[in-house]
């Protein structure tokens, strides 16, 4: 008992680094803080809680010199839930089944074309500017919702953390510019706007569309799920065809 009092802080610190408690607590605390900032800022695309949390936690790890593996030791419990959450996307897709069924052919054609254009153009541009294979295949699924994008990147030999970052950048960028782009190219149909936002920039742009129009939001939701499935199937083929 007497050795408890003079126990140096670094001893506690190094003990905690071997335990899951710190990584898990830090993740949840940072998330709550990020949500608070996002609400105070009025839900700006740039204060997206996921984007903020990643930035804050990454800075904290770099400043304290904590290795990512020590952090992930705790954060893995949150990470694991991505799997069942992806499966859960089936429920909103089922809820929108009538609308999907009615316009299935236009949805399928536009979404597949847009999805392939976004993925292939990203990989072609990056290759032309000298990016290596693992960066290219990590970039390919960037327009898809994160859990699916990371799994696709992993299957193709990419870096899932890198893909998660690319997905975030795509989402923040898409959410900021989507309304301006639609205005420029005169896309006025809410269904087309929602589908395009969900296809090119997943949940982040969809969240922006939900605030503007309900129909656009529903089509964005459909696009997130369908694009996840289409990209999972098409991207490995495209990577082979273009030889990325």
């Amino acid at each position: 008992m007497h050795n408890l009092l003079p126990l140096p802080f670094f001893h506690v610190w190094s003990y905690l680094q071997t335990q899951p408690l710190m990584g898990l607590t830090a993740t949840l605390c940072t998330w709550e803080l990020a949500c608070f900032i996002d609400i105070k800022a009025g839900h700006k695309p740039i204060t997206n809680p996921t984007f903020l949390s990643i930035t804050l936690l990454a800075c904290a790890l770099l400043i304290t010199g904590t290795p990512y593996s020590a952090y992930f030791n705790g954060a893995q419990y949150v990470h694991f839930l991505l799997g069942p959450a992806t499966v859960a996307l089936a429920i909103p897709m089922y809820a929108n089944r009538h609308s999907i069924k009615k316009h299935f052919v236009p949805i399928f054609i536009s979404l597949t074309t847009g999805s392939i254009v976004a993925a292939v153009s990203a990989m072609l541009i990056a290759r032309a500017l000298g990016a290596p294979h693992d960066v290219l295949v990590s970039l390919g699924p960037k327009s898809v919702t994160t859990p699916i994008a990371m799994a696709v990147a992993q299957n193709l030999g990419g870096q899932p953390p890198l893909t998660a970052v690319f997905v975030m950048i795509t989402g923040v960028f898409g959410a900021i510019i989507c309304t301006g782009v639609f205005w420029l190219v005169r896309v006025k149909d809410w269904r087309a706007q929602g589908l395009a936002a969900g296809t090119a920039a997943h949940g982040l742009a969809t969240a922006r569309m939900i605030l503007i129009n309900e129909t656009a939001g529903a089509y964005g939701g459909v696009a997130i799920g369908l694009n996840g499935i289409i990209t999972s199937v098409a991207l490995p083929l495209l990577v082979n065809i273009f030889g990325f």
Partner: protein
Amino acid sequence: MVRSIMMLLLCQLAGTVVQEGTGLPIPGPVMGLVLLLGLLIWRGGPSQSLHDTAGGFLKYLGLLFVPAGVGVVTELQVLKANALAIAVAIPVSTILGLVVTGVLMQWLLRGKADA
């Protein structure tokens, strides 16, 4: 609620078994999504409990990809080495994706009202 989580995990497990067994490039959880969608269409919709549990997962979807995103600290060298490629490829391809999908969808839906 436990039954709903069990349902989601079983679909994911079945999807992963199919993916590992067949070597298909579709991720296990995506296969699980398709499987659950098939089940819902066949059985006629989710129970209230499954509906609520799925809603709970999706409400916090943003939180769930934080741990993987923090992995960026292990990729800083890669990001730095490919900064130009990334800074051009992501904005250009995202705009192209938005334009192509939006214009095509609007053209295909011209004159077609929603139900």
